[in-house]
Structures are given as structure tokens and as C-alpha cells.
């Protein structure tokens, strides 16, 4: 599995072969608060880099989930739809959102590594 990469919209992404797994970062969940609703893209649909690919709602507000890369949705995580609190518990592990079959793996190149993202998250929070 590839190194974890991060987007400015606070998604994380890992790559295995040509299939990317995408979720939202721990930092994002801390900003959102308790998550009570999750909506995921439909399996088989195509999503475009930086386009919306889902929604999460906290007790306070709704937020779009963006995809950091383009591709076809090959799997979604029904467990977080059934129990959205799992996203707060393990955002960067078992509470992944969806898997994409990537078209263009070079889209990964512009994303941040962990160190860069941590710095970005720290700066954007203050």
C-alpha cells in the first residue's frame, strides 16, 4: 500500500494497485464535532477530482466530502452510514468512506504527505 496522502479539503487517500481508499482526516472530525449522518457516492458512479462525493453532518451543520482524485466508485463503507459515530472513533482507519478505481495516478502527485498536511491543518485551524 502506498504512503498516505492528504488534500486541502481534509481527505486522506491511500493507493493499492489502481484502487484508492478515501476518508476524512482526524483533524476534520475534530473540526466537525459529533458526526450523525453520512452520505456516500453510488457504487459504479464516476467522480471527478475536487468534486463532491458525499456529505457528512454533525449535530451543528452539513459539510460536503470531496474526492481528491478522479475515478469510478468501486466500493463504499456502509458501516459508517449505519453508525456515523464510527467516523469520530476511527476516521483514518476502519471509517473509510469509498474506494475508487483511479484513471490517472499522477493526480496523487499534487497531494500533501503527512508532515505537510499536519502543518497545513495546524495553520488553517488558527
Amino acid at each position, binding site marked *: 500500500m502506498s504512503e498516505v496522502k492528504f488534500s486541502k479539503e481534509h481527505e486522506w487517500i491511500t493507493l493499492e494497485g489502481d484502487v484508492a481508499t478515501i476518508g476524512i482526516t482526524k483533524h476534520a472530525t475534530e473540526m466537525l*464535532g*459529533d458526526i*450523525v*449522518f453520512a*452520505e456516500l457516492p453510488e457504487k459504479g458512479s464516476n467522480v471527478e477530482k475536487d468534486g463532491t462525493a458525499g*456529505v457528512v*453532518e*454533525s*449535530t*451543528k*451543520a*452539513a459539510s460536503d466530502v470531496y474526492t481528491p482524485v478522479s475515478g469510478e466508485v468501486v466500493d463504499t463503507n456502509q458501516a459508517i*452510514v449505519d453508525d*456515523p*459515530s464510527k467516523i469520530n472513533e476511527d476516521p483514518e482507519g476502519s471509517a473509510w468512506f469509498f474506494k475508487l478505481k483511479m484513471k490517472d495516478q499522477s493526480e496523487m502527485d499534487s497531494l500533501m504527505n503527512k508532515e505537510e498536511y499536519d502543518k497545513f491543518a495546524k495553520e488553517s485551524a488558527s
Partner: protein
Amino acid sequence: MEIKKTSLNKLHQKNNAKFVEFAGYEMPIQYSKGVIEEHKLTRSHSGIFDVSHMGQLFIYGNESLTEELEKIFPLDLKNLKQNCSKYSFLMSEDAGIYDDLIITKIEEGYLIILNAACKDKDFEILSNLLGTKFKMNLDNNRSLIAIQGPKSVEILNSIINGVDQLNFMTGHWFDSDNKKLFVTRSGYTGEDGFEISISNDEAEKFVENLIEKGAQLIGLGARDTLRLEAGLCLYGHELDINKTPVEANLKWAISKSRLSNGGFIGSKKIMNQMHDGTSQIRVGIKPEGRLIAREKTKIFDDVDTLIGEITSGTFGPSVNGPIAMGYINKEYSKVDTKILLEVRGKKHPAIVCGLPFYKKSYVKGVN
């Protein structure tokens, strides 16, 4: 304009509050535990809410003040006993709601608790109506602390002996450390609880004492989920100048004895609406599944007719599901009516339901 801070601001910071601006004040939306846990703590134990941004209006006077206030509010104030409280409204001539409020008859006159966003305008309106005959004080030197939840009576009584003898919607002056506190048994969470009016310089110490006894600070986020579960209206959402108390399904708050003769501001419209009904009314709404329908979500029937709008919607931690309130055309307001909510361009099923979503446990008949 510079953001205002309550006398508990430093204590909120010390307790890792996340702040938001609310009605010109920097207020805690949540602390480190988060909205859901704070909500559940209030329902199961005891939560402390800083509601010092709300207005505490003291109006001093005797029978002639009661007479003047009856010309304004739809209440039977002549028969309101001293230290008893009533929920009411400041209305326009068209019965539009300027504010919803709690009025308590005290020895010196009346104490009216006003919403933060409305208090200055309310003061202006009431000053114009009452003239200079009565001394009025929108008291900025006092904080207002709510303590809510089943353990609150035990905790508060250990600090202010005797509060356990108050019935719901009554209040009294108490002495604590030689300080005068006005305590009412009331609140806005659907739980038993109290609101304490205390001088600003004593507020922090008082709340620290409550925390020491086991109560915990709760933010505005949980205050909103708690009041919505209890089916209670929030000004600026369910209530505004374009809504009347009858449309808001709050006609219980209008004293029956005042409906025959009127004589309060807005009485003509209220009496007409009581007789003829209104085209829309506030109802409870339960979306199917986990869908959350926020404020301004449009409501449709099954043939695509727009029939209403959501005014508040969130996830109810104690009912463990989404809940909402909104205004809907009268013919759709019956409990169990199937409706559709348009969220992010798609229509989702929901039903009209009774309020509250969560059953209250107010204390009556202590004495």
C-alpha cells in the same frame, strides 16, 4: 462592534470551550466532550449553561404596573401570584412576535427574561409603551446561570438551601454567602432545573462551586438539541415577527380569561385566529432513516405541492434519530401525515409527529 463577553468567559476558556458568536456575544458552542455527550450528561445528571447573554429586565411598580402590562401581554397578571412565572410574548399589533419571554411577578414588580438578540429592541418597545412612570432596568450587572437535569436539585440545594421547595415555574430570592440570588425552577431543556440570577462578580465562583459538586458545563450546541427534543421554540427559527403565537401552536400560553375581552397588543388578530384557525401551523417532523433536514428545508406533499418549511432540524441524541420542527399547511398537520423533505435536491420521506420528541419531567406539587 466589539464582541461582548459574559462574566464566565474565562471559565469557559479554562474548560476548553469552542466559541461562536451568538447575538453579539462570544459564547461556548461546546466543550471538549462534544455536543452528544454534553446532551446526554444533562439528561442523565446535571448540566450548567451560561445564559448570561439573555436580558434580565426588572420593572418596578405595583398594581398600576400590572394594569399597564396587561395592556401589552396576553396574560392574566392580576391573578398571577407573587414569585410565579409565565411564558409569554411581546407582540406587534398584528400579533407578530417581537420576542418570547418569561415573566415573573416579584415583590418589587416584575422580572422579565428576554432573548439576547431581542433584548435591546424589547427594552425600547417597552420603554415607549410604559413611558417614564415605572423604573426599568435591563440589568447588565447580573449573570444568568441555568442548571438542568435530574441531579440539579440535589447539587443546587447543597449550595442554596431551600431551592428544592420551589415548584416548576416559580421563583424566589435566596441568600447565599450574604449575596442575593434570584432562583426560578425553570429551563429550556425538557428537564427539571433552575435558572439563577447572580451578580457578575460572584458568577464564576458560583459556577466553580457547581462544578465541584458534580455538574458540568454544557455549550449552546447541546442546548439546541435539548430544546428541540423537548419541542421548545427558538426565537429567530420557530418564532419571528412574521409568526403569531397561534400559528406557532403556543395558544396554551395565552391566558383564557384574556381571550374574551382582549385589550392586549395583538389581541384582535389572536382572537380572529383562535376563531378561524390559521393557514399554517408549527408541527414536529421525523425524517425517515438518519436524514437531517435543516432550517429552510422545503416540505412537499406526494404530488409535489410545496406545503411548508423546516425551522429547526438536527439529530436528537436521546431519541437517537433525526428530529425537526417546521410550519406546514393546516390540512397536513395531523400526526402521522406522510410528507416529503427536499434535501440536496432529492425528496426524502418523513412524517408529521406530536411534540415533544422527548418527554419532560418537570417538578410540580413540591409544596
